[in-house]
């Protein structure tokens, strides 16, 4: 049962296309598993469709129609068969189709990196400039030590779950926080947790973990 959803603002901004790709990816990963948020996005897109249809039309050159008619029989290079790399992830059925093209490897072949023996992180390559986009996984007992945020964090749970004080986040759940939040998520309600994490600024670890983890979670 999904209990934690993106704020309506975030769903709306996703539907208008105004979010950065990395943040949209986190929202879309949730939407793929959540019928009620999928409906909100679809209804917002319907408003966009109606507004576009109401726009005063602007004349198009005749050559543009001719050019399009000449091009529609060209082979469609962009929609080549999906890569075999994702077969295993599909088998595991925890990675929704919208996320699969971003992995670029089988789930197990992602560049997993253990972080202080607490959890593993695999950074996805496409977003190096503006966002840090990672898959995190941890077994029962794993946790991310107490930390604050330099900016916005979005997280979508792909499998298993974790707990943050009194809130439990499970497969399909979405959560976002900003620089006002400090927390210490721990995997103690499920045997494992796999999630998509999107950051637009570095995490700031407190206490004894500061020296070890701060350099790792720099952007």
């Amino acid at each position, binding site marked *: 049962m999904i209990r934690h959803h993106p704020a309506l603002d975030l769903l709306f901004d996703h539907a*208008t296309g*105004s979010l950065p790709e990395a943040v949209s*990816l986190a929202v879309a990963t949730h939407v793929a598993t959540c*019928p009620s948020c999928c409906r909100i996005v679809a209804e917002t*897109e*319907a408003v966009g469709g109606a507004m*576009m249809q109401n726009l005063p*039309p602007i004349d198009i050159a005749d050559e543009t129609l001719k050019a*399009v008619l000449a091009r529609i029989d060209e082979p469609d290079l962009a929609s080549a068969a999906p890569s075999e790399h994702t077969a295993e992830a599909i088998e595991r059925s925890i990675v929704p189709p919208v996320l699969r093209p971003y992995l670029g490897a089988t789930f197990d072949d992602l560049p997993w990196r253990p972080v202080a023996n607490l959890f593993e992180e695999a950074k996805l390559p496409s977003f190096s400039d503006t966002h840090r986009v990672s898959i995190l996984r941890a077994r029962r007992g794993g946790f991310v030590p107490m930390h604050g945020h330099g900016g916005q964090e979005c997280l979508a749970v792909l499998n298993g779950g974790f707990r943050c004080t009194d809130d439990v986040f499970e497969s399909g759940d979405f959560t976002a926080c900003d620089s006002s939040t400090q927390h210490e998520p721990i995997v103690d309600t499920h045997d494992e947790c796999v999630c998509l994490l999107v950051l637009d600024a570095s995490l700031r670890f407190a206490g004894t973990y500061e020296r070890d983890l701060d350099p790792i979670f720099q952007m």
Partner: protein
Amino acid sequence: MSNEELSGLIEAVGLRRDRAAFTTLFRYIAPRFKAFAMSKGCAHAEAEELVQEAMIAIWRRASTFDRSKSAASTWMFTIVRNKRIDRLRRERYPTAEFDEAVQQPADLPDPGQSMDAARAGESVRDALRTLPAEQLLVLEKAFFEDKSHSAIADELGIPLGTVKSRIRLALTRLRGESMEAFA
């Protein structure tokens, strides 16, 4: 042109590769795609290139259009929105379809079932004409200029909460009962 007629044209393209239907569709929607591109600041030439890309995508994906799931105008909006993001921002748009393969066991039925998509599209168009100007302006910034809530607040010099409430009021009015989430 109504969503019923547009749906028929897209289906003719999808099922029969019907060039006459595609040309009719082009003459209606391409000038609106161009207006959509120019509302974000594209010059004529770039807008026409974006129109070409979007129309070719419509030809290629027409067989995936399902009138029971979305209004034709909604489906075409998502195509031109994604092409514009691709072209102007060099980014992809992660489009999620509700995925039953990863659906949670206790979840609700298919989100598409609850509304008649084509009729909903028409009622939204009618309701847009009755929207207060300040609400319409915020929607235009969002959909045409792809500005986020916070970018709209910055540009108009109004509090974020005001942007949120205008958007919610507008959506509630546009979608009537079906947009309960925004009430």
